[in-house]
Structure formats: C-alpha cells, structure tokens
C-alpha cells in the first residue's frame, strides 16, 4: 500500500518541480486573464467542496503523522479528473493551476483521520467554495465486526465431569479485525481448568474469517454457575478499538455421578450334612457411573471349616460394571459339618478414583448329620437276633 503512495508521490513531485517554470510561463498570460483569489476551508473525509465547475473531494486522510491526504478533483461537464495524494503545506496545481483557470490547493492542517483544513486558489469569478456530501461518504464504512460465542459440549453436567468450552470468534464485518484479544472471565472457582485455558484467538481476522479456541475443565462444586461473558477486543485499520462479547451461559452442576453396587444373594436352603448347595450372587450397579475393579470377597464369620467349596468361588472380580447393568455368578458349596454359617460378602470397587465398599450378610445352615450309625445300631439287634436264631437252629439241627 505504502509503495503505491510513494509512486504516486514521485509522480506528483515532477509537476511540482516543474511548476515554477510553468508559472513563469503562465505569468505572461496573467494580464490578459482575470485575477485569482484564495479561500480556506475545512472538510471531512467524504465531504466535497464546489468551486465553480470544479469539485474537490477528500477521499481520506492517508497519514496524520506524515501529513498526507488523498483528494479527488474533477470538473463538471468535462473529462477532467485528478486523484492525488497531497503533502501538507505544499501547493498543488490542478488543471494547470489557478493562473490558467484551474485550481491550486494547499493542505494547511490535518486535524485527525477525518478532518483537514485546506486553502484553494482559483479565478475569483468561480465564487465561494460550497460544501457537499459525496457519494462515497453515504456508502457504508469499511469496518471489522466480531461475533463471539461460547458454547459447552454438554448440558447434563455432574460434579467431576469434564466440560469442553469452545470460544468461536467470527469477523462478520467488511474490514480486517486487528489486535484481537479474547478475555474470558477469570478462572471460576466452580471449575478446575485442565487444558487450553486461557483461550487464544488469532491476532487478526479477515472479513468472513473465524477462529476458535477450546479449553476443558472439570466441574468441581455442585450448584448453578453463571458463566460470565467472553469479551473479544479488537481494532480496525485506524486502530479504533471495539469490543464484542458472547451471550452468557448458565450451567447447573449436578451432584457427582457415583456407582452404587447392590449385592443380592440367593442362599441355598438348609444343606444336608454332606450335601451341596448353590449360592447365587447378583452384583447390580444401581448408580449412574461405572464401577471399576469390582472385587467381591466372601468371609465366613463363624468357624468356616464346615463349608467346603465344590464348584465356583464366592470371590470374584469384574473390571467394570456399567450403570444399570448387573453380573451374576454362583458357587456350589458342600456342608461337611453341621451348624449355621454366617457369610459376609464384601464388594469393593472404584468409582471416579474413589474406593467404595458394600457388604451383605447371609446364612447357610448345614443340617445335623443324619446319624447313619443309628441304622447300624438297628443292625446290632438284628444281628443278635440272627445269631440267636442261628444258634437255636444249630441247637435243634441234628
């Protein structure tokens, strides 16, 4: 851009350098023509000044510091049109200058990016300069405009959940947004920030361009949180600073999700002495989070020697039991000694890094030994009787 100005500047320089000669030459015609007059006026970018058939329009202030402005000068009902970058305090002749019926313009002062004070020299019969608003000024200005949006990736959030926040910044304007700085609310105590915080957005965004930043955090405390707005500050090409902000979001952090294991035991009825019984165990996760590393272990409280495992084991482990699901298993035991055995089943498991325990107790009864020897005792009298009969038989057998 600046290069263009320099070229234009060089082009402009040559006529200015030639101007004394041209002036000297035109001095000869002065006597025969009308005398010139000069007037000063201020105008803003987009404004024009009528001087006779000439029109002078301030296109823009190119640089306040360098004292450069761009003007367009044209003449009504003719082909004359001249675009020029002017340096302040330097006369510029348009359409051969005031001496020859044209204009000679000088920038006296540049107030700011909008406003300039200028002196025009022209044939006095052109009258007073009159201001008007140009076509250009009525056209919309080229400005950047940013839209900021902050979104969370889920709506159902419980304590301990990871939440991803996406900050999207879009330039919906028609000029480049510069020096973009996104300011998210200072870290909220309700969250623990994991990665991507604070969010960063490109420094510049072209019209239509958008950028996003994602950061993740973990909900820590239970309750309602009003996430404050995210503000984007940016500047336009003239370093004017603007800001845009996202609509605020409110989040409800529900209590933490927990696994909740429920042990259900279907113990066998009384087991005969030396008989077998099957214990069915159901481990159900009634919570809303998976239970991990589930270890079920059985402990026979009373003197447990009377129960012998036959098939399967009451001790069991599961890597994961998802919420709402259950695991079933069974173990067969043999009652080798009579008595009532209290068995404690303990399920220890992990839910979100926390160790939890559930236990349940049940009883297995092993019935008294059916005293088989009583039947043998019965045999004794039978044997005695048999022996007696046999003896009698022998006694009377000849």
């Amino acid at each position: 851009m600046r290069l263009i100005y320099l070229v234009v500047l060089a082009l402009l320089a040559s006529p200015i350098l030639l101007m004394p000669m041209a002036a000297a030459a035109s001095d000869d015609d002065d006597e025969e023509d009308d005398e010139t007059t000069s007037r000063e006026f201020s105008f803003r970018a987009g404004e024009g000044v009528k001087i006779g058939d000439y029109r002078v329009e301030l296109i823009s202030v190119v640089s306040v510091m360098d004292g450069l402005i761009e003007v367009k000068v044209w003449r009504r009902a003719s082909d004359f049109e001249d675009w020029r970058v002017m340096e302040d305090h330097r006369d510029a002749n348009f359409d051969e200058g005031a001496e020859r019926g044209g204009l000679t313009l000088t920038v006296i002062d540049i107030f700011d990016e909008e406003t300039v004070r200028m002196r025009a020299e022209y044939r006095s019969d052109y009258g007073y300069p009159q201001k008007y608003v140009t076509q250009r000024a009525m056209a919309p200005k080229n400005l950047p405009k940013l839209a900021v949006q902050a979104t969370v990736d889920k709506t159902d959030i419980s304590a301990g959940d990871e939440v991803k926040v996406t900050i999207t910044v879009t330039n919906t304007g028609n000029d480049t947004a510069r020096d973009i700085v996104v300011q998210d609310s200072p870290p909220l105590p309700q969250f623990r920030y994991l990665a991507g915080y604070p969010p960063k957005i490109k420094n510049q965004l072209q019209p239509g361009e958008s950028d996003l930043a994602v950061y993740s955090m973990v909900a820590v405390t239970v309750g309602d949180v009003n996430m404050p707005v995210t503000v984007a500050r940016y500047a336009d090409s003239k370093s004017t600073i603007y800001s845009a902000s996202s609509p605020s979001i409110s989040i409800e952090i529900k209590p933490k999700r927990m696994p909740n294991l429920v042990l259900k035991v279907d113990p066998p009825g009384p087991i005969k002495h030396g008989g077998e019984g099957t214990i069915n165990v159901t481990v159900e996760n009634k919570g809303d989070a998976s239970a991990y590393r589930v270890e079920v272990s059985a402990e026979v409280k009373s003197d447990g020697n009377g129960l012998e495992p036959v098939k399967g084991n009451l001790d069991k482990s599961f890597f994961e039991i998802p919420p709402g699901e259950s695991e079933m298993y069974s173990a067969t035991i043999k009652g080798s000694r009579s008595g009532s055995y209290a068995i404690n089943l303990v399920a220890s498991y992990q839910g979100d890094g926390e160790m939890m325990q559930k236990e349940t107790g049940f009883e297995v009864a092993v019935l008294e030994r059916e005293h088989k020897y009583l039947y043998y005792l019965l045999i004794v009298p039978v044997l005695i009787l048999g022996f007696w009969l046999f003896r009698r038989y022998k006694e009377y057998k000849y």
Partner: protein
Amino acid sequence: MLNVLMLGIGQCGNRILDAVNKESFGGSSKLSKYYSRQKFPSRVETLAINTAVNDLKELKFTSAKDRFHVPNLHGVGANRSIGKQGFWDNRDMIMEEIERRGDFDIAFVMTSASGGTGSSFTPLIIHELRERYKNITVIAVMVLPFREEGSIYLQNAAFSMRDIMEVESDGIILVDNQYLKRLSGDIKTAYDKINDMVAERILFLIESLDSEMLSVTDLGDFKTVMRGGLGMGTLGFYESDKKTTSLTSAIEGSIKPGGLLYPANVYEDAARAMIIIQGSRESLDVDEITKSVEKLSTKIGQVFKGIIIKKGKPKILSVFTLGQVPDLEMLYAQAAQAIQDEKGRKTRAKKQLDDAFAYIEDLEEIY
C-alpha cells in the same frame, strides 16, 4: 425240686419226647423254639434214643445234644432180637449218655410197644436205670399199636409188654393208638395229636408232683397209685372251656372214657387214682373238690387229690392204675392168634419148599 429224666426211644418215643419239648416251649407255634425258652416245672432232662438216624433228624423241638443215635444201626426193622442185641452192644455208651445228665428222682421212658427199637430197648434201659439209680422211680409210657398194623407189631406189643412187667418198673402208662385214632382222620395228624396229648399230661403230672399245692400230692403218692392194681394205668384229662363248669362235673370229665389215653371204665376197673385239679384260687372250692373226690373214693378205693393254684381255666388230670385190663387181654389174644397164623404160614411155606426140594433130593447138577 424233682430231677426228671424223660427218655423217648424209637420213632414213637422220640416223637412224643419232641412233643414234650414243644409243649415246654409254650406249645402252639412251630417257630416257638426260636423265640421262646423251654420251661419245665422241674429239672427235666430229655433224651431221644434211636437206631434210625432219620427218625432223630425228623425231630424239631429237641435239641441236637438231646438226640442220641445208637451207632452203626439203621433201625432194627421191628425186630426186637436185633434191637436187644443192639442195646447190649452199645449199653455202656447209652447209659453213659444218660448218666452224664446227673441224678434223677423219676424217669419216664416213652416208646411204642410194637416197634423194634423202642420196645426192645425200653425194658433193658429200665433195668439198667434200676441198677444204676438207687431211688429212682421209673415209669414206662407204652404206646399200643393200631390193631390192623400187622402181626409183627401185635406180637412185639405182646412180648414187649411182658418184658416191661418183668423188669419191674414202677408203673406203666398206657396209650392206645387204636383207641385214640378216632380223634383224627389221617395217621400223621392222629400221631401229632396223640403225642401232644401225652406230652401235655405228663408235663402236668410232673408239675403236680413238684409244686406248692394247696393239697399235697408227691412222688410217693404217685408211686403208690402206680403200684396199685396191675401196675399199669393211664391218664385222664379235662380242661374246662367255660369258667362256669362246676368242679364236680370237671372232675368226672377227667375220668370219662373221652378224656383217657387208654380205654377203661374207671369206676369199674380202677385200682388207685390221683386227681390233680389246677385253677385260679377263686374258682377252686376245696369243699366241693373234697366231696367229689370222696365220692370217687367210695368206688375206686384210694384216691389222692392235689390242688394247684394257677391262673387260667380249670384243668384236671387223673392218674390211675387198673385192676383189670380187658382190652390188653384182647390184644394178647389177637397177638397170639397172629403168632399162630404166622407160624402156620411159615410151616406151610416150609413144607411147600421142602416138598419142592424133594423133587431134586436125589439129583445132582449135570453140566
């Protein structure tokens, strides 16, 4: 307590002895020996002696050690001579078997009068008992045959009865198969019935001699009765099936022909008698008994009475000896006739054979 020896000799004697043993078990059931105990009123030793081992095997209620087989003999085939010889050959062994059983006050030797073994052994054994036991009372129980059983049986009965009389037993109790045959149709059941009757009475008798009686009869009384008349007699028995039966009619019932083991008219023929009445205390009226026994005495002569107090229906046993035995006389007559017939048949046969041989008398065998 009396020491009683009971010998059953020969098949008939063995079986009566077996009936005695059965009765001692309580009687009724065949299996009683497996669950019951023998109960004798006194110390009773029983011994069955036979020459035929099969007869001994047949016994059911006599213990094996109480069965004695006379070695090397297989019955004597109703031949009393062989029987006697068999006894002599084995006398010591037989007597030793008896003597092993200790001392005895009374011995009953039971046999058929008509068989070979029993009828020949019995007189000899009685003799031996008399020799070996000083104060023993020996009673022979002789079973007379069915008259139609044949001449040898009749002959044996006749001779054996004489032998018995000669060895001077303390008395003979007669049992007549012929007379008792009427009690049953077939011979087998008749034998069993007769044997049971004899067994029951003899055991009752022993009990009456060896129990605490209200009115005492003892061995001496019994001996006196048995020595009366011809030294032979029989037993009568009456068991009331109703408690209401009067004692008088019960006593009379025990000497009526229907209750006797040998046919006799007690009022006419009896020499001495002993009446034993058993019953519960309330059923026995001593006065009534005394009265009816006295009434009997006027007809018979000597009547001993014994009363045994024991629960149950009244039972009456009568023991008596006879002054005359017309039936036995008839048996002798029949026997004599049979012997004559036998002799005649033998002579005829001999003559026939001699005549037949006469044809070849002067001839020699020619080959």
